[in-house]
């Protein structure tokens, strides 16, 4: 990765963190749909990135969000999980498509591929987050609705931001 790319991606991560901490934390649709836009910072990292760095960056991002929302380590653990699983999904998709270079992004992958790449990871991240936050098992249905609604909301926002960003 060149220095220029490194700076570009760090700025991207900072931008998503800024969005999360200042805006998205206040936005909740119908008391169900939350948006955790910051995970786009992990999802949109280059596909050939060193996995060790990706894990450490994911932990750092999650931890910063944790500090700002008093959740101690929930965001960190969920984000590390998707950072770990991400290369497997990219690899699998690349194989099934028959491409020789792994790339991430709505332009490089195409709309369908992109959604089928981000949605499972977002769903996983949100499930882990909300299930950890759940206090008692009686809230399971309520939590499941929250997971679904939030995953949809986050996916739509990431796609929108990705469509309007020129890179």
């Amino acid at each position: 990765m060149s220095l220029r790319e490194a700076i570009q991606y760090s700025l991207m991560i900072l931008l998503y963190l800024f969005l999360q901490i200042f805006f998205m934390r206040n936005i909740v649709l119908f008391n169900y749909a939350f948006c955790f836009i910051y995970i786009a910072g992990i999802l949109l990292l280059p596909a050939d990135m060193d996995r060790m760095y990706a894990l450490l960056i994911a932990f750092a991002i999650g931890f910063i969000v944790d500090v700002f929302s008093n959740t101690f380590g929930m965001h960190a653990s969920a984000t590390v999980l998707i950072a770990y699983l991400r290369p497997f999904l990219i690899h699998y998709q690349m194989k099934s498509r028959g491409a020789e270079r792994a790339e991430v992004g709505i332009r490089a992958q195409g709309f369908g591929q992109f959604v089928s790449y981000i949605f499972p990871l977002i769903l996983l991240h949100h499930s882990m987050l909300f299930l950890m936050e759940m206090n008692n098992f009686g809230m399971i249905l309520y939590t499941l609705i929250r997971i679904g609604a939030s995953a949809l909301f986050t996916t739509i926002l990431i796609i929108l931001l990705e469509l309007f960003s020129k890179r």
Partner: protein
Amino acid sequence: MLQLVDFVVRNRFFLVFVLLEVLSVWLIVRNNTYWGATYFNTSNYYVAKTLAFSNSVRDYTKLNEINADLASENAHLHAQVARLSQTNATQSPAGYVPDSAFAARFTYTVAKVVDNETNKANNVITIDKGTAHGIKPGMGVISATGVVGKVRFCSEHYSVITSILHSNFMVSSKLIRSKEIGYAKWDGKDPNLIDMIDVSKYTKVFKGDSAVTSDQNSVFPPNIMVGKVETVAVNPNQTFYNITLRLATDFRNLSYVYVVQNHQLVEQENLKLRTIDPKK
């Protein structure tokens, strides 16, 4: 040995992954350790400053409601002063002389809400007063309209409050008309509603009755509003009502709160401890 090194090198990603997961779970479980409580939450000075900045914009748009709340509180206090000046210690028998230190045991500190959450399963609030202003963990927090929560962590200038919308928080409350005492506890769903548990079903409970903090509270002063009875249900298998209260405080618009300090709390708690440990 070489095999072990080989194993570590081959699985280094997985090992780092497990390490980081264990670290974060440890953070969650041990969230009460000193350094965790001091630095890694919104009572951290820089974090709170950032949130205060982002909150200041929203605050400006809410000035109307804040004004209305303060005006209504003023009216309420006037009424209380008038009532108190007429009758002293109404419920006590004739011979009871209230101790003046006991009557004046609560003092209040005004604080501004820096960060507020209502939508999670466990909600906390950050305020802009800390140990420098005499605030300590365990103090009660009320607002102009009712009960808010209890102080959890303090830094020098900021504190984190466990809101009443938190799974580990209960308030001993009393229904005014039926004079029944129970606990108010949040079920984790709607931030406007709260459950009241442990109210015996052999008394009559009225819809619209007010629930206030009871006299058996060491953290909150008595007769602070908690909410109004919204629904009452009876489960035939149980001896308790299922009561839902509509909260008096609108947590979404919370801007100023009062931290309640009970000067006799330590004395009261120490006395209680003696009953637990009879050797001393």
